[in-house]
Each structure stands twice: as structure tokens, then as C-alpha cells.
């Protein structure tokens, strides 16, 4: 289990490239790690379903949604998603 004293030494600096999409130039960074994790899980499931020709699934990946995608792929060759 990594603890605080295992944290590497790093330098702090600031970005000087404001985001052009909003008036104050702010960028959201607070939950970057959290945001990526669910896509990673979805990608893993889609990868596991590759033999069925399924290329994408929408969250949440409930058991029924995965089951339906497999059923649809078996029936028509298309995932329907």
C-alpha cells in the first residue's frame, strides 16, 4: 500500500494556456483520474465482447444491457447499440 512518504518529489508550475471554450479560460482537472476509470471498464467489456462483433456499449453496463447486446449480435450480427 503506497503511503504519503512514497510520493515522488515534483515541481509545481502553472499552465499559461487558457481554455478557449469558456469565458474565464478554466480547465477542469480535479477528477481526471476518476473520469477515465469508467471508460476503461467499458472498453474492457467491449473488448471482451469483440468475438460477437460488438463495437460499443453505453453506460451503465447492467447485466441485462450486456446480455441484450449479445442476444442482438447473435440474432442479427449487429449489436444494436
Amino acid at each position, binding site marked *: 500500500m503506497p503511503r504519503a512518504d512514497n510520493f515522488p518529489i515534483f515541481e509545481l508550475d502553472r499552465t499559461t494556456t487558457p481554455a478557449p471554450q469558456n469565458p474565464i479560460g478554466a480547465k477542469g482537472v480535479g477528477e481526471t483520474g476518476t473520469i477515465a476509470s469508467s471508460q476503461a471498464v467499458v472498453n474492457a467489456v467491449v473488448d471482451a465482447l469483440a468475438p460477437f462483433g460488438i463495437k460499443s456499449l453505453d453506460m451503465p453496463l*447492467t*447485466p*441485462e444491457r450486456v*446480455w*441484450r447486446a449479445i442476444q442482438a449480435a447473435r440474432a442479427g450480427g449487429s449489436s444494436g447499440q
Partner: protein
Amino acid sequence: MYPSDFAYHRPGSLGEALSLLQSNGDGDVKVLAGGQSLLPLIKLRLAQPSALVDMARVPELRGIVEEGDGIVLGAMTTYFQAIDSPVVQRRCPLIVQALRQVGDPQVRARGTIGGSLAHADPAGDLPAVAVALDAEIRAIGPNGQRSIPASDFFVDMLTTSLQPNEVVTAVKFAATDRPRTGTAYVKHRHPASGYAVVGVAAVVMLNEDGTCNAARVGITGVGTHAARAKGVEQALAGQSVDANTLGQAASHAADGLDVTGDTYASAEYRRHLAQVLARRAIVEAAGRAR
């Protein structure tokens, strides 16, 4: 989450409990066992009883004893007491396997055998076990005692054949510690509540040549109440337990059931789960019978 007002009684004997149930005849009196289903209903004001009769200190409703070809659990036996009982472990391991999968440790510490069956939740685990183990529910009321077979006990969603002034005193389960007999309970657990989206309890008895002599299969979560899956049982009887028989038998898992869907699982998916879980339960039970 605040209940409406109710009177609270905690009798010290079964006789006192029964007279309290009679004397409160005008209002809506509820029997309180472990409270794991009733108290949430009262807090949500889905139930607004005028009085509660708490069975916590009624000694006649406690105890686990062997009786003939089965075991008898007092109605106020908690899930944990049943799981922890050497008698239940030896004679009815199906009860232990199923109750280990109920809710969470808090629910298992408070919830009771009698309370679960009397509440008759359509997604409860124990009702499937009760029908698979040919349970006999013993009740007492103003007209005396009677025994109700589990197959006649569950009549509809949250509805049993108990009269309003009757109390479950004990439940007898058929023991399965016999030669070439195996049991299993498998469920698809709801990720939030822990209830069975679908649960299947199976008892499989094999012949000496390995073919199936007879099977009893109880299913919960699929219809309005727990029920025997007779179609599955009939397809197994006398057959060798091979892939072909299993597929054929499991296809009958939801036969005759009024399958209802909800936001988590549609009726169609529930029917599919019933077939998959019936197959798994039978395979596991047959493996233990060998």
C-alpha cells in the same frame, strides 16, 4: 422516515402475545419479529399499524430441534443463529448456503425465519428454500394450532394464507442428510439491496446408477411469490444428469409463473436468469449428491 404513532407491546409469553393480538382487534395490529422488512415499511408510512406486538421475549418461539425426518426452527430464530447451528449445518445445509447470501451482516443478525416467511417478499431468499425443502409452517391463532405446507403458504405478492390474528410459531424443514442427496442455492444478487433478482434452491436425489431419482426446485424473484418449478422437476426425474437433460429441464424454470419486470431486470431477462440459475443450482446440487 418518521413512523406514525403506534402502541408498542412486548409480551413475555405466547399466551400473552395472542391475547394482545385479540384485544387489539379493531386496529391494524402487526407482529414484530426481526423488523428488517416491517420497520422500513413503517418508516416509509407504507404501513401504519395502530399497534406492534414484539415477539422478542416470547420463549416459545425460540430454539432449533431435530424432529423425525427434519428439523424445526422456532419462528424467532435469527438468520445468524440458523447459519451458526451445527444441527442446521448437518441436516439442512441448503438453509445455511441460502441464508449466508441474505442481505448484510446487520440483516442476518436481526432478521428471523418466521418473519421472512410471514412477510413473503417476492424476492426473498428463504421462501425458495422453504418450498424446495417441503417446509411445514406452524401457526397458532384463536382457533388453535395448524400446519401449512409451504406450497400452500405463499399465495401472492407479500401475501400468505395466514389469518391476520395468526402467528407463525415454528417451521419444519425436511432434512437432506441422506445418501446420494445434494442441495444448492444460487442467486443473482441485486447490487444495491442484496435481494434475489432471481434465486433458485435445488434438492437433487440420485439413484445408485447416477441418474436422477427426483428433484425439488424452488424459485424466487420471478413470479409474485416463491414457487416450485414443477416443469424442471418433471424433466429431471428418471433422467441421467447430462447436458441435454439439464438444458431441457432448465428451459422450464419460469413455466407457469407470472413474470414481472422492474427497473433493474425486465421480465424477459428474469426468465433468462431463471433458466441459467436453475441449471447452475441443479449442477451444484447433483455434484454434492455424488
